[in-house]
């Protein structure tokens, strides 16, 4: 069929089954937007900033596991999208971003709104394309979606010069992809799997170390089956919250810098780490030489470059977690769960010694209480997004996540301003779910313009601002490590939150008591409009436990050992 390059872009998006595209028009991408106007195969959400459009596509992808799509124009449209690409890249999120580019004849001339998009995005995309002719456009679009969702998923950029979007040519969307240089390994090596199983059978203190790869592979049921069958305890990374389910007795909690005591001690004392889709991030390992010092390591990962990158691995298995576990679980048939009984009891004692806890108050709302309360009121039917900082860690520590894809946050890059647009993306993907963005008074102002998007598209996202009038996480480090010199972290000067959200077409609630909190959350769910719950929380609350950066995991700062909980009340 004969059609323009712009039409081909729309046809490809429809052929890929994408229901929602997030974006922002501009000069170089206008022809594509003209075709978007004419079609009705997908909806387009006009975010109010390109960064937010990419985060929204990211939230859509995280909530569903499908490829998220964002569309931006050349130059500043693209550069604004870079933070979104980098966020998705660090967390291996499948995404296709389509950017306009100046016409081919202008490339390299410093044309208006020209920037080297493939050059800039090279280190923050799985792959990128500059389309050089109309003939290659259908193939490139097909490959972009294929690359985004296969192997280790990631964002792919397709940069299309404006003249190619106008040109007319023959369109036939390829049915299959043939990239001779790209063959991800899905099936784990049988011999390696057998060896790993032998190691599990011999171990006395094995530990499941679960990462975001379990979510990406949709392998959580198999992971739970493995744990239940063997009764091996598990720790989750920030990206894996929900994999085991909060009520699972085998789940110790989250490990790492803000991991709970039992999880970090388990990692410090285990004799066999069974790493599934985790990548030994520095926020997880702490001091590498002390990390899992007494353990052999089984590492299952679809990306060979993750294996032995930071920690020497004894049983490397390159493959998709689902496929590897399908082979591994039957081989573990004979394992007697009693074998690890003593180990589980040690860990239980650790958890009783220092449970994940905080000191609640009747005078002021504690941020941890607010998160637990949301869990009690909406629990498993909610999707929780977050921004970055203290509120993010408290949410990861205290929310009762029941399933993967319920928790959406920027783990690897740590992007403030991610939460609200990601929540919009998640809500478009899952309209039946209550979507709550747990945020702070710092983060929410980055991309606060998205309130308008949420209001316009009747996308009721509840923003719970845990307001401590500080850039809380930086303030916490200043308290602990910079002798309380609060350099540029005091956010006493604030907007009127209620007026701000109402000006954008939403509802505002000022919350200072627990009663007000409950009433506001119930009303927000009923009203079904975008809203701010401005929750005044204890100013100097700290995220604990905490492993100081570069310290050994077992050297945690624990709640009772911090005098006065950090600061004057």
């Amino acid at each position, binding site marked *: 069929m004969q059609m323009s390059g712009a039409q081909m872009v729309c046809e490809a998006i429809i052929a890929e089954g994408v229901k929602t595209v997030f974006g922002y028009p501009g000069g170089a991408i206008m022809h594509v937007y003209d075709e978007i106007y004419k079609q009705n195969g997908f909806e387009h959400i006009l975010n109010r900033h390109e960064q937010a459009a990419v985060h929204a596509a990211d939230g859509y992808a995280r909530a569903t596991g499908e490829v998220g799509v964002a569309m931006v124009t050349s130059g500043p449209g693209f550069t604004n999208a870079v933070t979104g690409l980098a966020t998705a890249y660090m967390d291996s999120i499948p995404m296709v971003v389509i950017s306009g580019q100046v016409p081919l004849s202008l490339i390299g001339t410093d044309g208006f709104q020209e920037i080297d998009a*493939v*050059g800039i995005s*090279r*280190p923050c995309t*799985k*792959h990128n394309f*500059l389309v*050089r002719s109309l003939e290659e456009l259908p193939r490139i679009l097909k490959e972009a979606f294929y*690359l985004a969702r296969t192997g280790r998923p990631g964002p792919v950029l397709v940069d299309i010069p404006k003249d190619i979007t106008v040109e007319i040519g023959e369109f036939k969307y390829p049915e299959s992809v043939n*990239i*001779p*240089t*790209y063959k991800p390994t899905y099936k784990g090596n049988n011999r390696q799997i057998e060896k790993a199983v032998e190691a599990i059978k011999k171990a006395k203190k094995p530990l499941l170390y679960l990462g975001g790869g379990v979510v990406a592979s949709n392998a959580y049921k198999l992971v739970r089956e493995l744990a239940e069958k063997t009764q091996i305890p598990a720790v989750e990374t920030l990206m894996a919250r929900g994999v085991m389910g909060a009520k699972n007795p085998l789940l110790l909690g989250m490990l790492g810098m803000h991991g709970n005591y039992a999880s970090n001690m388990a990692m410090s004392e285990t004799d066999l780490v069974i790493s599934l889709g985790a990548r030994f991030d520095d926020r997880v390992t702490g001091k590498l030489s002390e990390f899992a010092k007494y353990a052999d390591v089984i590492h299952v990962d679809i*990306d*060979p*470059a993750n294996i*032995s*990158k930071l920690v*020497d691995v004894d049983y490397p298995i390159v493959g998709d977690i689902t496929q590897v576990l399908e082979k591994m679980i039957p081989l573990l048939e004979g394992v007697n769960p009693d074998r690890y009984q003593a180990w589980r009891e040690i860990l239980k004692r650790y958890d009783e010694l220092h449970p994940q806890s905080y000191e609640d108050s009747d005078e002021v709302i504690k941020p941890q209480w607010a998160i637990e309360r949301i869990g009690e009121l909406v629990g498993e039917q909610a999707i929780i997004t977050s921004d970055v900082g203290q509120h993010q860690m408290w949410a990861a520590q205290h929310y009762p996540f029941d399933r993967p894809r319920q928790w959406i946050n920027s783990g690897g890059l740590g992007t403030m301003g991610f939460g609200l647009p990601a929540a919009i993306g998640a809500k478009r993907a899952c309209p039946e779910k209550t979507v709550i963005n747990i945020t702070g008074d710092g983060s929410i102002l980055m991309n606060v313009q998205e309130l308008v998007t949420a209001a316009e598209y009747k996308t009721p996202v509840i923003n719970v601002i845990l307001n401590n009038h500080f850039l809380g996480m930086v303030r916490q480090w200043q308290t602990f490590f910079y002798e309380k010199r609060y350099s540029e972290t005091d956010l006493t000067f604030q907007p009127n939150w209620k007026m701000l959200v109402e000006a954008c077409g939403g509802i505002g609630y000022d919350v200072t008591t627990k009663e007000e909190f409950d009433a506001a959350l119930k009303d927000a769910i009923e009203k079904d409009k975008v809203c701010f719950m401005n929750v005044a929380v204890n100013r100097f609350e700290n995220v604990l436990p905490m492993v100081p950066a570069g310290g050994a995991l077992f050297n945690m700062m624990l709640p009772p050992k911090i005098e006065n909980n950090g600061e004057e009340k």
Partner: protein
Amino acid sequence: MPNTTNERRVISVVVMNESSVLARVTALFAGRGYNIESLTVAPIPNSDMSHITIETKGNARVMEQITKQLHKLIPVYKVIEHEEMVEKEMVLVKFPIAENLSDIAALAAAYNGGIVNVGKEMVVAQVADEPKRVKHFIEAAQRYNPCEIVRGGVVAIER
């Protein structure tokens, strides 16, 4: 424990011959803090592939990461990194015509080369040999006051 000493290695990379593929490879080295000592690129005859030869330095863990990260690049077809490589490097050296030409010719001949161009004021010698011997040749050539030295970078092939 992995070997932590920095060793010189030559890595051969077979890539799709497409635009910006070299930029992807060099950007990977720059972005992850790996060294490039020398680099040569040329298309592989009768194919749509190119051969990139990179001379680099690093310990065993770094080498493993370089190899894996290179392999992760979508247009990379094959990465060959081991000790059993036949390596050659070319160098061109320009000497003033006033120097002892027969000495220079004899020296170049000793390193599998010779004089390849003679002009009014300058003479150019060429040597193609193992990288270590090329280095020796350049050292030996110092006494004839070379005014310009251009090394070609290492090319390598599996034994």
